[in-house]
């Protein structure tokens, strides 16, 4: 009897695991241009890791996918979503950078060239297994079958015409060591990757704040009609540029001031957040993470200053 119940439970469990439904929806933000908007949250079992924006452009020469999402299952459901909109094949998938929510769907794009900047390819190839373990731990069943599949091709920056879309690939950095932005000069839509966040606190595990701020100015100068941030709603500029830059500058200032006062990291994490920062999604947790990522360099500079 007990064994029978256990068997039924196992069946239910595996059924649930396979059935995780991301409920992906494509929002058409410009002609032939779609964004799949993720939750402004941390990884969780409830969201299956869908905390990220992905996008695709349906060109006359096939579909270009920008980021593949956080899991194999997400990648498959993204591909199915695209298949519901067009019969055209996916001809190119790009990963904007080496953060797992942006590339762990690669496994679903079998037979499609997957390209990224050289630095991104290397970072994904060298990502420690513990990174994937950690996401399995946070997300659970929705990660089933997900493996790290590094992009097989190096993306050369520059302008490239794909099926009537003039796509400019920009090699930037600051959020990570290598950040790709894709600017569609035909529609004015800029896929900014995680160089831009809107209404969601920026993440900083590999951030170089000065470099990142410079990259935002480069993106601003493109004068896009619409900015698709890596996290948060697509919106015309300058909202995402301003908000991201304001946060980074605030972070830089508050960490420098804290180091000058001799605060320990544990105290810095507990500092009150100004209203503009507190209004961003997941602000307290993300700020605490940023302190761990970035504060040691400020402390070292302060301790070694003569």
């Amino acid at each position: 009897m007990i064994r029978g119940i256990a068997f039924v439970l196992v069946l239910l469990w595996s059924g649930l695991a396979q059935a995780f439904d991301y409920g992906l929806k494509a929002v058409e933000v410009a002609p032939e241009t779609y964004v799949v908007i993720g939750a402004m949250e941390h990884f969780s079992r409830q969201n299956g890791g869908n905390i990220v924006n992905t996008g695709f452009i349906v060109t006359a020469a096939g579909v270009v996918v920008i980021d593949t999402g956080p899991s194999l299952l997400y990648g498959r459901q993204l591909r199915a979503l695209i298949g519901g909109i067009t019969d055209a094949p996916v001809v190119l998938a790009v990963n904007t950078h080496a953060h797992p929510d942006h590339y762990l769907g690669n496994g679903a794009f079998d037979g499609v060239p997957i390209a990224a900047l050289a630095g991104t390819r290397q970072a994904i190839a060298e990502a420690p297994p513990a990174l994937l373990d950690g996401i399995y731990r946070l997300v659970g069943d929705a990660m089933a079958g997900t493996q790290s599949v590094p992009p097989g091709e190096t993306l050369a920056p520059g302008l490239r015409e794909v099926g009537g879309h003039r796509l400019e690939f920009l090699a930037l950095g600051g959020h990570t060591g290598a950040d790709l932005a894709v600017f569609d000069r035909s529609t004015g839509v800029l896929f900014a990757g995680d160089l831009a966040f809107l209404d969601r606190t920026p993440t900083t595990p590999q951030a170089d704040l000065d470099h990142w701020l410079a990259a935002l100015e480069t993106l601003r100068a493109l004068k896009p009609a619409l900015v698709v941030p890596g996290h948060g709603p697509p919106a015309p500029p300058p909202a995402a540029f301003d908000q991201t830059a304001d946060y980074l500058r605030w972070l830089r200032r508050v960490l420098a001031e804290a180091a000058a006062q001799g605060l320990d990291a544990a105290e810095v994490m507990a500092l009150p957040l100004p209203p503009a920062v507190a209004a961003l999604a997941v602000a307290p947790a993300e700020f605490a993470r940023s302190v761990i990522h970035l504060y040691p360099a400020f402390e070292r500079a302060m301790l070694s200053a003569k």
Partner: protein
Amino acid sequence: MITRRLLLGAGAALSLGPRARAAEPADPLQSISWAEMREQFLGGGPVVFDDGVALSAPSSAEDALQVPFLADAGKLGPVTRLVAFADLNPIPLILDYRPGALAPLIAARFKIQQATPLRVAALDARGLWHVAGQWVDAMGGGCTAPALAHGTDDWTAHLGESEARVFARDGRRRLRVSFRHPMDTGLAAGIPAFFIERVTVEKPDGSLLGALETFEPVSENPLLTVELPAALALPAVVIRARDNNGNVFRRPVTL
């Protein structure tokens, strides 16, 4: 040592009277290891879970090798010891601080192996332990990972190098000091335990102001924070660190 501990325990029981024999306060963190921790590190003495120690630490360890915490027992009046431990770490005891003439405040970083309660207990003048604590979530692996220094060839050349700075904090003087040291736990394969085990703050004439025992879980290249009370008017102090191999590192600091 044992005798002194017994006497202390007896003295505390006498001065507290019936309260000491009252029902044991339940561990607010509901850790299965609490009873053992208390026996091992607090000598089984009377405890209270109150807000006597202000503990700052993250609820989640973003970096398992460097989890910061700061404990301030300033509101308790004279405090003779501050003991920090993480119940579920393979080596739970992080540090044992006897502030002496220094303020009852300590900040350090520790390596975390898995989600665990982090506690700091302060022993007040009446012999009562005030215990603060919180759970710290972690993906783990911090204690069994080799020190990052082992990824470089020349770490021994920099062993014991130090940096220090004094900050004015609300009338007190805060001293932050870091030493280059791998702080090996002995739990990483093939790397024996090698860690700073005692850090003292001394007057220039060598007399002791405060003494900190540090243990394996303290993070690589320890960054320690202590405070000198306003009343302690000194032109300079000397910080002395000794590791379990007998190396001694000395750092004079002008105040």
